[in-house]
């Protein structure tokens, strides 16, 4: 099978507008998470990483929604650094999101026309048309692992030679729909989130978009390689993670196997680390089952919040830049380990030679995903 490389990428978040800007600000401990007054999203104040209401993402909005503008702006910036031709038959667009344009339900009565406008395929067609993609775009909507599923799907389509290039983009917008749901679960922290910490008490949500352009063209072989990936299901509970971590461990094992890499060759793990009691506990168990408990682990939720369908992509980009720059980003919000099994949580900038990274994610529906990046 062919090797798959990262050609270019973009992160568009409240932290910054490019991957380089985001990475740089993370090394300076700058976060997008802050307290917001309730307003249209919530009856009570809440912490989240949100764009400013007046922020412009694209010069010409063209009746595109905020969700679509984020996709377009992120893809545009990533393409700028690449020679990828969207109109090439060997190039495919893959979109990752959990809720897309769902905020439209908040302001309009549901009718067939609105339902059609909300449909993810409508957004995908608009975005694909904007860039002139000739192939029908793929849309992944698989809860909080959507971004990794989109990357794994892109990797496989390129490995088999069905396509040569994949533009993998993810975005989600935080409005009342999503926030009220997480609030109803009592899953939102009343403060900046604290992944893996003994006093962690929930997530912060975040808005953002991320784009990774993948190619199997050997001329990009100097780039970071997306070497493997795997997906599993807990088969346990639709809103609570596995009690044992065994199924995330399956995904980790599958990702390592497909990458042809042994666990001990991994230099750091970019975890999901949502800062809920049960997610972080489950991840610690999976990391121990994999025998990777001494390998540095970080969570980026303290900087970006949980960006849902964008999170797997945004966090993969930071991991790739970490590999390139040989620096591990610390886990913002972490202070004292609070897990039943020990893991090595990164809590300060670590400069060391890095070659291989494992990135994981888990989500509602009991889903888990893992990918391996190599230099």
């Amino acid at each position: 099978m062919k090797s798959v490389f990262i050609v270019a990428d973009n992160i568009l978040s409240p932290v910054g507008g490019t991957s380089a800007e985001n990475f740089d600000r993370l090394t300076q401990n700058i976060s997008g998470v802050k307290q917001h007054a309730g307003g249209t999203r919530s009856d009570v104040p809440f912490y989240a990483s949100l764009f400013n209401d007046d922020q412009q993402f694209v010069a010409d909005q063209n009746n595109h929604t905020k969700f679509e503008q984020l996709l377009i702006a992120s893809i545009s910036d990533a393409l700028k650094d690449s020679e990828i031709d969207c109109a090439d038959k060997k190039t495919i667009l893959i979109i990752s999101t959990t809720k897309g344009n769902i905020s439209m339900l908040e302001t309009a009565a549901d009718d067939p026309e609105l339902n059609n406008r909300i449909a993810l395929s409508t957004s995908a067609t608009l975005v694909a048309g904007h860039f002139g993609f000739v192939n029908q775009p793929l849309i992944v909507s698989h809860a909080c692992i959507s971004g990794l599923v989109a990357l794994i799907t892109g990797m496989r389509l390129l490995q088999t030679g069905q396509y040569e290039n994949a533009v993998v983009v993810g975005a989600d917008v935080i409005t009342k729909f999503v926030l009220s749901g997480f609030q109803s679960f009592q899953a939102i922290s009343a403060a900046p989130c604290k992944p893996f910490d003994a006093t962690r008490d929930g997530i912060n949500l975040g808005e953002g978009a991320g784009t990774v352009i993948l190619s199997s063209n050997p001329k990009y072989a100097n780039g970071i390689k997306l070497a493997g990936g795997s997906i599993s299901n807990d088969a346990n509970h639709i809103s609570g993670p596995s009690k044992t971590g065994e199924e995330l461990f399956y995904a980790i094992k599958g990702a390592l196997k497909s990458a042809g890499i042994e666990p001990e060759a991994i230099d750091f793990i970019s975890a999901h680390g949502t800062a809920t009691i049960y997610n972080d506990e489950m991840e610690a168990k999976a990391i121990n089952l994999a025998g990777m408990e001494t390998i540095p682990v970080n969570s980026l939720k303290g900087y970006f919040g949980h960006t849902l369908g964008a999170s797997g992509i945004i966090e993969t980009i930071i991991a790739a830049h970490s590999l390139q720059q040989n620096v591990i980003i610390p886990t913002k919000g972490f202070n004292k380990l609070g897990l039943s099994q020990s893991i090595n949580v990164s809590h300060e900038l670590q400069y060391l030679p890095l070659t291989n990274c494992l990135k994981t994610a888990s989500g509602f529906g009991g889903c888990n995903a893992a990918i391996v990046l190599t230099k």
Partner: protein
Amino acid sequence: MTATNHITSHCVISNNVVYSNGLPVFENKDADAGAFLLSVYQFLEVKYPKFYKMDNLSKMGLLAAEVLLKNNPISELYEENEIGIVLTNANSSLDADIKYYEGAKTVASPALFVYTLPNIVIGEISIKNKFKGENAFFVFETFDAAFVAQYVAYLLNNNILQACICGWVDLLKEDYKAVLYLVEKRESDVSVPFTVENINKVYLSDTEKPGNDIGA
């Protein structure tokens, strides 16, 4: 050369009828979507109390999987992480989204919110049957047999899975259609090759006259 995989069972649920391997096995003509799905549950004698708390999309997917697996005890043949689920639809979880947000205008319900993701139907089928393998949910404007064929073949041919439930589960209010395929590497007396042509034939079988040859 690519290996040939086989559709060892298929199920279609649409327009108040349940088809198993091309033959109508249950019909309840005048029921709305919710009442129809309940009558299917009772007909199949599923006896799974979690069914009642599910949204209609999950109910339909779970019931279609029940039909698919009725005479196919794949859990006896394969490990739990060798069985996976790949589903697609057009309306994501919009049916549950609308119901959740209507309620959230007064009190947001976590029990409804959890169904506002299309992959929850995969989670429900996985929990009921203890399937832990690869799973993925894709959204398309219309059913894309070629994509499903390609994606599932990759999983089987690379030994990531030994069996895969795949297909289409779309439900918005009173419009619904589920078409699920059980795909394995083995042939059976009733299986048909897992090809784009056969996938499409099954997908369209509920709109055609009975008696067409779709095997399985």
